[in-house]
């Protein structure tokens, strides 16, 4: 209830500030709003939040360019040259396959598995664990898919764009290991999320609602009006996906509920159980072609509920097929509760686990001005004084993905195309595209900071610095020259910790380095302790 009162307040505030939108046409202020941070500190802060941490020397480059100018460039990713990443992407076989290819591979693997099962029943000596070549190929592509996310996050120059891809992937989370999502999720990333990550929320919402990956994950593809019957034999049609299944005979509320609760209004967004049911009815017929036909989105008129529906007090006259759903999604995308819910999530991601009200207000106001243009909402957040306030600097603990990618970037390490680095992220608690529940990975530190996970981070740091972390090549020579203890500590502090190394950390490093005579070992130890230590866990 409280939230609703708050966003009602914003409507008024937004209306009173008609000039607020004009400032974006004007030249950007060169100084950081608030202005309490030094240019170097503000560059470090921006690189920690808008990017996956700085690479060696990047803090200085951003500070020299002017952090607000750098932010402005990041907000227009198309203008940033990203040839190096494009070159790396060519090494990923998965990007050369469209959904049809992957669907064909998936159904072939399923068929092979069924045949093996039959064969296994007669030949008890068959090795159950040995996979067919086609299954192996599928597994390799799946590994590539998770690794691609890590490689892009580490190497792209369009850092804010990659951060937003991760944000939306989490906001519209699907579970890769659920049946057909094994071949639908790569397409979901490439063609649903990535092209719209910096665009209008409404476009993204509609694209997600029509994405086979989401329709499958939250079961909407088989939600049908009670009593509706397909104009063809159903059992033949339903092969694939999770095998032969009985004909659906009614609505399934799963997607409808999460659409309201997670994707748009938020749990306190003021909807009722009857709203959930009517949303599900409106979306009956939003389904998927069978895999053999490519598994694309398909509106199945026969399954659509033609009755009248009411959602949030708005009447939806029956008989308008797919248009009802589009109208519903537009209604949800522009609803004040949605603006508040998503803006709050963005501020939680970029500013503080407990997002400051002022920042959320600014984001909501920008949302209203720009009709939900992600770039403008982000711009408002990065111009909010709260983003730069001292209490929000280093106030967030890195997620496992952020920790691993920032460590790779800090050491200028080169990830390979194997799934091994993505497995490191998984071991730390964040297997990509494998969050079972539709709420996505949490943004709060309490979810990530615990004794076991911290020890794992320390182990990863030590392995990375020693050149033993699977999936990456690290050459410390290029960033930290061999030297005596004080030199090493100085360089590590500057290049890896952005100058935030505490006195205690310096003392511990000094003591440890005093007991290490071999210079390569000393350097690896200094880097490993810095990355595994407490300062590097924060951003």
């Amino acid at each position, binding site marked *: 209830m409280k939230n609703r009162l708050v966003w009602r307040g914003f409507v008024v505030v937004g209306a009173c500030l008609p000039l607020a939108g004009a400032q974006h046409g004007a030249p950007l202020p060169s100084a950081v709003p608030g202005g309490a941070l030094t240019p170097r500190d503000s560059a470090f802060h921006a690189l920690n939040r808008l990017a996956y941490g700085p690479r060696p020397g990047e803090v200085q480059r951003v500070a020299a360019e002017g952090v607000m100018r750098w932010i402005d460039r990041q907000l227009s990713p198309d203008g940033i040259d990203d040839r190096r990443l494009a070159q790396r992407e060519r090494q990923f076989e998965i990007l050369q396959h469209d959904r049809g290819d992957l669907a064909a591979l998936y159904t072939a693997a399923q068929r092979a598995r069924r045949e093996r099962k039959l064969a296994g029943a007669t030949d008890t000596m068959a090795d159950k664990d040995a996979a067919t070549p086609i299954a192996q190929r599928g597994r390799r592509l799946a590994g590539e898919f998770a690794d691609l996310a890590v490689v892009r996050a580490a190497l792209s120059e369009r850092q804010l764009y990659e951060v937003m891809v991760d944000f939306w992937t989490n906001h519209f989370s699907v579970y890769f290991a659920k049946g057909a999502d094994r071949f639908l999720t790569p397409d979901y990333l490439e063609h649903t999320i990535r092209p719209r990550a910096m665009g209008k929320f409404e476009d993204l919402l509609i694209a997600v609602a029509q994405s086979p990956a989401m329709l499958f994950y939250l079961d909407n593809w088989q939600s049908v009006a009670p009593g509706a019957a397909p104009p063809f034999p159903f059992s033949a049609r339903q092969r694939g996906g999770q095998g032969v299944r*009985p004909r659906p005979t*009614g*609505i*399934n*509320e799963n997607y409808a509920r999460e659409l309201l609760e997670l994707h748009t209004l938020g749990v306190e967004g003021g909807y009722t159980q009857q709203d959930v049911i009517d949303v599900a009815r409106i979306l009956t017929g939003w389904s998927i072609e069978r895999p053999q036909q490519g598994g694309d989105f398909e509106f199945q008129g026969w399954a659509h509920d033609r009755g009248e529906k009411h959602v949030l007090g708005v009447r939806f006259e029956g008989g308008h097929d797919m248009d009802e759903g589009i109208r519903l999604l537009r209604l949800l995308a522009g609803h004040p509760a949605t603006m508040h819910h998503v803006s709050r999530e963005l501020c939680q991601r970029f500013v503080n686990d407990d997002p400051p009200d002022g920042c959320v207000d600014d984001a909501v106001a920008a949302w209203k001005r720009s009709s939900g243009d992600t770039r403008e909402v982000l711009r408002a957040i990065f111009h909010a004084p709260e983003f730069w306030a001292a209490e929000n600097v280093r106030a967030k603990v890195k997620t496992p993905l952020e920790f691993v990618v920032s460590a790779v970037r800090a050491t200028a390490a080169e990830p390979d195309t194997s799934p091994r680095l993505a497995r490191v992220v998984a071991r730390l608690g964040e297997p990509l595209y494998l969050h079972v529940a539709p709420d996505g990975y949490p943004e709060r530190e309490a979810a990530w*900071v*615990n004794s076991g996970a911290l020890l794992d981070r320390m182990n990863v740091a030590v392995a990375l610095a020693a050149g033993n972390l699977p999936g990456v090549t690290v050459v410390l020579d290029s960033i930290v020259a061999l030297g005596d203890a004080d030199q090493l500590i100085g360089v590590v502090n500057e290049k890896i910790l952005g100058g935030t190394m505490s006195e205690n950390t310096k003392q*511990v490093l000094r003591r440890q380095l005093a007991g290490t005579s071999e210079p390569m070992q000393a350097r690896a130890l200094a880097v490993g302790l810095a990355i595994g230590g407490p300062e590097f866990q924060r951003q």
Partner: protein
Amino acid sequence: MTISRRVFVKSGGLALFSVGLDPLFLARAAFAVRPAARPADRRILVCLFQRGAVDGLNMIVPHGDPIYYRERPRIAVPEKDVLDLDGYFGLHPRLAALKPLWDAKTLSAIHAVGSPDATRSHFDAQDYLESGTPGVKATPDGWLNRYCQHDREHQDTPFRAVAFGPQLPRILAGTAPSLAIDDLQAFGMRAPQPAARDRLTRAFEELYAGSATGLLATSSREAFEAVQTLKRLDPGQYRPANDADYPRGKLGKAMLEIAQLIKADLGLQVAFADVTGWDTHVNQGATEGQLAGRLGELGQALAAFTRDLGERMRDVVVLTLSEFGRTVRENGNSGTDHGHATAMLVLGGPVNGGRVLGKWPGLDPAQRFEGRDVAVTTDFRDLFAELLARHLGARDLSAIFPGFVADSERFPGAIRG
């Protein structure tokens, strides 16, 4: 603010910080300096969270009610397959491994148990189940953690409250120390030589003791204390007793490690693990199928755990919990949607076994919650409060379940008097 443990110890605990706020890490620091009290009480509570909302009606089947069969033409467990318990309820056949425990009166089920809050959102309902405050989102800690906060008699060890998994669950979040262990054997710094391992451990311990703030400080301290203890335990050598056969997979591994910690006498009092795969919207199955597979694993894990612990089960209670139940009527996809009340199991020596507890509201549409779901007749807090009070000896239930008046008259009777 940076607080070194050493400085903190010297300045005498909480007194220094008694003014104003009592943030999580400061309050936790207070535990580090509390002297160990009496020897470890051996009574233990193990909680298994069936995350995703288990279908209580297909776990503890009301096979004596024709409405059950009428509402579930495709997914009801056929009468001939149900393992009858009392003429009306029966076990799902894939829980057969639990039938001997039922007959030995160490296993009970509570039916129609759940939250007084009406939400059908997994996330809200899990949140309320774990915070122990249905309807209140702002509760910062979980009820198992609050139990640990308020029972300060208990010996303080890093292993008192342990969650098995990569993340600390909400139910154990809070100011009392608690550990998350994903793999007992791999817990700690990894280095080929023991000397290098010890040195790295010490170095990181000093880094975090001196420079970490907030949760990073408390979690790292708990980690290093546990590392020291486990070093002596050598978990790689563990072999289950009595040929206990744990199922492969996460649940079996977690139950094996819980048994191992219990037998190691490290002061474990509260253990927690997640079991997923219960959100059966589609093709739930009946005697066989998705849900049957999950129940089979659960039954096998509980049976193996009981065998492995043998005599020690005298002091142990295992509780299964889930955020809500599922619709009485099957949906259009041979599955079930989010419902209201569910069933929970209690197993162990102290359990008042061999009966289905709680008041059964019936399946008639008029008796259902909102006409579709099993109504809640036992507030889950009544069950949890009974386990804490009668099994673990908690005294101040009002502090553990704020806003709730625990009344032993309403306890479902899960623990033998």
